[in-house]
């Protein structure tokens, strides 16, 4: 798929977050730390990046991030509501202004009835939580890389939308 990671999305996120004095936390399932690693690779990340959780198993999503176990059991982990609760959980646990999450079916097998390539990315902020659904084409590595890019892009979009300077 043509959606390669734009060079410097992570740098843009860090730069914008620093400018607007927003802190960031991550909660990752299928990307397993790729988003956190991308943010951490940028010089100056320590000013804005609070921390991140790799929550691969369902019970960890529940115990660490406070995802609703009943909903998780009903829909499986690849779900918009789970992504939302993960992002909100990261924001709460790491006391950050913005929480970003990824959950999806990386393949090679479909996951809980969700097609390989289905990815949900959520960004939680004081203004609310936005969830985006993707269906990426590619093998396991490509899907994970695209999911990581998507998370950084949504984080960037949320930072642009956020009210400059006014920390609510």
């Amino acid at each position, binding site marked *: *798929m043509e959606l390669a990671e734009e060079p410097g999305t992570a740098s843009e996120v860090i730069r914008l977050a620093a400018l607007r004095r927003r802190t960031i936390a991550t909660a990752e399932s299928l990307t397993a730390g790729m988003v956190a690693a991308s943010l951490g690779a940028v010089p100056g990340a320590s000013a804005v990046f609070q921390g991140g959780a790799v929550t691969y198993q369902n019970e960890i999503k529940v115990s660490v991030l406070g995802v609703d176990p009943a909903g998780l059991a009903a829909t499986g982990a690849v779900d918009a509501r789970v992504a939302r609760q993960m992002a909100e959980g990261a924001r*709460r646990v790491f006391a950050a202004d913005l929480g970003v999450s990824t959950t999806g079916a990386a393949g090679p097998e479909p*996951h809980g009835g969700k097609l390989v390539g289905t990815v949900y990315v959520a960004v939680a902020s004081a203004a*609310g*939580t936005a969830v985006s659904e993707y269906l990426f084409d590619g093998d396991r590595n490509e899907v994970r890389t695209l999911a990581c890019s998507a998370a950084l892009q949504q984080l960037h979009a949320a930072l642009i939308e956020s009210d400059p300077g006014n920390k609510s």
Partner: protein
Amino acid sequence: MSTPPAKPAPTLNIANVLTVVRILLVPFFVWFLLLDDSAPGGGNGLFRWLAVAVFAVAIYTDKLDGDLARSRGLITDFGKIADPIADKLLIGSALILLSVLGELWWWVTIVILVRELGITVLRFAVIRYGVMPASRGGKLKTVIQTFAIFLYLLPLAGMVGDWYTWLAIAVMLAAVAVTVITGLDYIVQAVRLRRDSRARGQSGSATS
């Protein structure tokens, strides 16, 4: 910290706008084809070419809006329903119109439409057991159907010779074959999905 409200992806996004435009193009496509048929001189004139152009644009937006929605996180419930409806509306009206105009055997139109509607109903019927993925064959089917209709729509037979008619017929028959075969494949999948789902309840792999 209170729980902030949840915002889903906006329904009014570029992918959905393209889907709606595609639905709105269908009446123009039908209108141009009928106008051409009733034109003095027996048709295959300007309006036929306009119909071809509208069909081509609609097919292009179909690919474009799907790619945009999937790669940019613009997948919405509206799009999931409206996109396949737009798709079937376009293909369906093209086949029916070609048959009405006497250019395509009715049995071809009927076989393809019965299969398309049948599988759509089947998808909804088994949705509680799981989603049936659009197979590789399903994508091939759409490409061949579209190509066959495009060949039938282009008024070239009179200009380039009989071979063109035969080519169009061959591609249309291939479209029918692929349509029927992928239809049968979906039925097998649906039966398997229902059986597996009943056998093991919720799947528990750790790929997420």
